[in-house]
């Protein structure tokens, strides 16, 4: 059973002459422990795919299954609970609340879900420590560097028992060293069993994924094959 599955998902905005087909018949499945990157130019439907995968938006046709359960069959409340408990989001601009400290930001989704403040804080600290920024727990977002802010955002996305991580250009605003640090953390989360989807136009970021799918005009047009072992890159041809 896939952690996330999109079956024949289409999304149309507007109607008549202003109709826009953002997604056309998209099939995508992501297993637990796997990182999938969706690459495509602006306007190819990447962000729509992510918001539908995260049940923030409803597809025009087709279905979304999380852990094998069709999201459309869930009640409003169950869907909201799914978003709070199972799905973590990471955005390019971090989306941290400025008035809360790092640990408060990370603990917030748990508290909203009814976890006691104390327990949520402990889980928040744990997530921050796992990402190497436990010492920034009581700092406010504006006291953190861009790289640290994104770590807090990732901690918030994986805190508690979240097992689906959705990221939209998660390293967009960062320099290459911080960008690599961020994607390493996303990958580490996947190796602990989280299913991850990142949408990006950055090939260096996408190349951390187990599978890269290419989106064009709302359609998946291609995907990478599982890569052969890296040894093949090092087969010698003598230097000249």
């Amino acid at each position: 059973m896939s952690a996330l599955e999109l079956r024949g998902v289409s999304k149309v905005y507007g109607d008549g002459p202003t109709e826009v087909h953002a997604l056309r018949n998209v099939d995508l499945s992501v297993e637990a422990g796997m990182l999938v990157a969706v690459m495509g130019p602006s306007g190819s439907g990447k962000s729509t795919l992510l918001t539908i995968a995260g049940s923030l938006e409803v597809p025009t046709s087709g279905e979304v299954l999380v852990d094998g359960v069709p999201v459309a069959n869930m009640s409003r409340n169950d869907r909201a609970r799914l978003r709070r408990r199972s799905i973590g989001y990471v955005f390019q601009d971090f989306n941290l609340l400025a008035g809360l400290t790092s640990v408060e930001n990370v603990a917030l989704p748990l508290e909203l879900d009814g976890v006691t403040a104390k327990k949520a804080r402990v889980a928040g600290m744990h997530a921050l420590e796992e990402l190497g920024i436990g010492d920034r727990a009581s700092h406010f977002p504006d006291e953190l560097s861009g790289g640290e802010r994104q770590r807090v955002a990732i901690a918030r996305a994986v805190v508690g028992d979240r097992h689906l991580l959705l990221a939209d250009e998660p390293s967009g605003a960062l320099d290459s060293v911080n960008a690599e640090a961020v994607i390493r953390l996303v990958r580490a989360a996947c190796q602990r069993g989280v299913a991850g989807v990142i949408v990006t136009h950055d090939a260096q970021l996408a190349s951390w994924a187990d599978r890269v799918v290419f989106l064009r005009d709302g359609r998946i047009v291609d995907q990478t094959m599982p890569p052969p072992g890296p040894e093949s890159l090092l087969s010698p041809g003598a230097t000249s």
Partner: protein
Amino acid sequence: MSVRHALLALLSEGPKYGLQLRQEFEARTGEVWPLNVGQVYTTLRRLERDGLVESDDDGTEEGPQRGFHITPEGEAELATWLRTPPDMTSPPRDELVIKVLVALALPGVDVRDVVQVHRRYVVELMQQWTRLKEDAPEHDVGFLLVVDAELFRLDSVIRWLDAADGRLARLAADAKDAPEPAPAPSLSPRLRRRVGMRR
């Protein structure tokens, strides 16, 4: 890659034997550039002829027992080389650019599909390099720099393919609106030579 200057660099740390030079060269370049021992000795002989290195003994013995050290002229040559930018003025003959240009000129070929075939191949290569980077120990700076260089190079290929794709998509959209057929793409003979196209 200049083996000549790589050997000078290794010798600038102190006298070394030929075999040692080969091992150190490979270790420093993350073992991505293998070097055969014959190449090491041929290069050392040329460096010696040019007065940039000297042999530590009387020169009667060839092979692994013969040590070399760098001369002041060798040090100067190395310093100059490090600060001399490589020639990047003319674009290299790029087979991928040529393929896309040829596809553009051929009727019945979907250039954007051709672009996608290459894009997927390059991303797959990048995935392999990224795995190597992921598994490499953090202190192996030489190796990590080599992998980064390769990833940035491949990334620039992807960016070019993306840009080409965008241009072609825009052109196709414009052609739909315009009553006149778009003029056939053409390259001036000078540009054809620059990108390495043969007639």
